[in-house]
């Protein structure tokens, strides 16, 4: 595989690294459009498979997805290139943000800004939970699994990974 493809991949991912504000839902369609439509690096079916693989592994899904695309295009070099391209631009920005935020630690506006953004973040977490529930749950049993998981996590000290494993087993058994 030639170096040009790697550069194309880097130039595609680096800007996306910066626009992914508040979550990955905004960048997934764009990655799909570019990788499948514009460049034709993978087919629609392959893209769906790679996304399923990225979701099957623990960790940040989009970073894993682009890593797989890089790997498919250029092996280990592609993995490194994709991972750096998706994480370094926003990482540098986050580093600068941290430094700046700390520099203003004595400023009188800092506490209100922080304290004000927190409830919005709480609402966003709940909203993601709701959207995920709607997307994932197509049957009453699936809704029951989501509800039971929420209750068990809130009310018991059961390890959440056990609950996930049980849910996965239910799904494989065809009950969901």
């Amino acid at each position, binding site marked *: 595989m030639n170096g040009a493809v790697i550069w194309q991949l880097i130039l595609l991912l680096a800007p996306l690294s910066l626009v992914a504000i508040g979550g990955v839902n905004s960048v997934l369609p764009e990655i799909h459009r570019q990788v499948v439509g514009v460049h034709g690096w993978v087919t629609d079916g392959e893209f769906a498979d790679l996304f399923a693989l990225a979701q099957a592994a623990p960790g940040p899904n989009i970073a894993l997805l682009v890593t797989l695309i890089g790997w498919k295009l250029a092996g280990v070099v592609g993995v490194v290139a994709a991972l750096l391209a998706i994480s370094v631009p926003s990482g540098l920005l986050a580093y600068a943000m941290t430094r700046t935020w700390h520099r203003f630690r004595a400023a009188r506006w800092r506490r209100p800004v922080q304290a004000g953004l927190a409830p919005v973040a709480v609402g966003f977490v709940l909203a993601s939970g709701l959207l995920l529930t709607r997307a994932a749950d197509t049957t009453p049993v699936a809704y029951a699994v989501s509800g039971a998981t929420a209750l068990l996590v809130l009310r018991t000290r059961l390890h959440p990974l056990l609950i996930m494993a049980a849910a*996965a087993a239910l799904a494989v058994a065809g009950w969901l």
Partner: protein
Amino acid sequence: MEIARPADSHDAQDLPIKAPGVTVLSLFLVFAEISLSSFGGAIAWARIVLVERRGWLSERQFAELLGLCQSVPGPSLVNLAIYLGTRHHGALGAIAAAGGFLLPPLVVLLPLGILYQQGAQLEIVRLALHGVAAAAAGMLLATGLRMAQAYRHEPLALLVALLALLGVGLLRWPLLAVLALLAPASIYLAWRRLQ
């Protein structure tokens, strides 16, 4: 696993506390722990590990830091890793925390990729993922409710959270639009309260 944690007073301490005993290695390991546990979404696990298990952040500090990290470009949890890494050990800490979050999952992912290339069927994986996704959605709801509990004595903060939930979760407005509408009002309310 109970560890002394910063008290959740009405007004939490300001953000960049340095949690005691945070080394470069522990930054890497803690974010690897979060990442490797996160099937179906990492925010829930970030809260469990950082607030409940390690006590690096109070419930409110976690909400405040997440709010900050969601408001700047980039994936929120990588931003969060970089924030904590930088505050404790500068650029090296940032690299350790972000590396811990991003690299260990590859150890799981690449063997899966190789199996796939050799023609392994994904059907059973897809089925299992349905179950994982349903459970992960419930876990995220529980996380949001836990976070909201920290604001139970502040009706206005809860109102802001509810509006954010309605805007993004029910009306399906873009996150940035809801943030742009709600953040100024919420910051003003916080400013009034902190006077």
